């Protein structure tokens, strides 16, 4: 059995149409992995930055996994949402990234995208807000049915992901 510690933060996000943002996140692993401690999903605060484009969440992540195999290596998936002054929330982007498979402290910039509806829906969206969302959030980190989607680029989420590994070398794994 090998062990993996993920210690870091969801730092914040920038490059979105509005900067009053929060993030829903989760970590997905395959069947060989077992979570020993820590929360594998969560939701950040809503940050309304005083100056600048970047919203800061500093959301801590501290997870301890054991695993019997390399398949299903942990993936972090994100949804960035905008919240207005009235408390209404609107989806701004989806993104995912693998937890790094080498030990050390990593800075990761995770790109995001949003689904586009038909041209009629896009027109309505300009006036009324809202917009299409994925019915199945698995699509955020899976490639299986992606070809059905038409998406647009959105901003970037900054992550600090620290990885500590134990006993991977004993099983012959080179990282």
């Amino acid at each position, binding site marked *: 059995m090998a062990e993996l510690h993920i210690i870091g933060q969801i730092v*914040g996000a920038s490059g979105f149409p509005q900067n009053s943002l929060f993030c829903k996140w989760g970590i997905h692993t395959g069947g060989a992995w077992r979570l020993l401690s820590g929360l594998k999903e*969560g*939701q950040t*605060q*809503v940050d309304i930055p*005083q100056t600048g484009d970047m919203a800061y969440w500093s959301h801590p992540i501290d997870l301890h996994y054991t695993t019997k195999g390399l398949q299903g290596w942990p993936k972090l998936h994100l949804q960035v949402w905008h919240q207005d002054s009235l408390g209404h929330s609107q989806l701004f982007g989806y993104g995912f990234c693998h937890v790094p498979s080498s*030990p050390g*402290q990593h800075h990761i910039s995770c790109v995001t995208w949003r689904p586009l509806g038909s041209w009629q829906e896009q027109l309505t969206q300009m006036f009324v807000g809202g917009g299409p969302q994925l019915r199945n959030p698995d699509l955020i980190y899976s490639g299986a049915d992606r070809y059905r989607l038409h998406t647009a680029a959105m901003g970037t989420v900054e992550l600090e992901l620290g990885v500590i590994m134990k006993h991977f070398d004993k099983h012959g794994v080179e990282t």
Partner: protein
Amino acid sequence: VVMATNNPSVFLLMVNGQIEGANFPGYDNLYCKYCFVYGHDWAPTTGLEEGITQITSKSTQSSHKLIWNFPLEATFKSANPSGWPQLVVSVYGPDVFGNDVVRGYGATHVPFTPGRHTRTIPMFVPEPTWRLQKFTGWLMGRRPEYTDPKVVAHGEGREATRVRSQGFVTVSFHITTKDMKKMGYDVGSPSSANAPSATSNWSTEEQS
């Protein structure tokens, strides 16, 4: 004096560093409180877990530099990286009435690779939820504050909260660890080429 063993049951994390200063465009005459927050597998062995800096003012030359140059020295022990220590900082300053109010909370994990690291910590304040709260708060010189700043180190229960990020605190760390490798942990390569390597004859002194 604890001699090095071949089968250690704990590893040590030694933190040296300083709270260098801050960047808060809107505010001056600030001081900073810090504390270390860690999980239940961890215990401090030497040094100070918490402290308060001096009050500092912006320099006349460089209009946004606030400098504390405040030392951080602490050593921790643990059998498990879970609950890795975080440095929690909170910055306070006077409002127009002269009352001390919070100007920002922030937190960062203590780095785990041996060597030199700098962290720029974004600082935020909780936002009042109602416009009326905002106005009476301004009138009375009161802002929402956390009763215990340590909550900033935890991720649970943040869903309903609104915050305003409005500054940064800069911290530098020099990190040394002992026996992490012996206990089987791989933390990646040290961050600087001159990082000291722990020898097997190195002994650590534990006071109290």
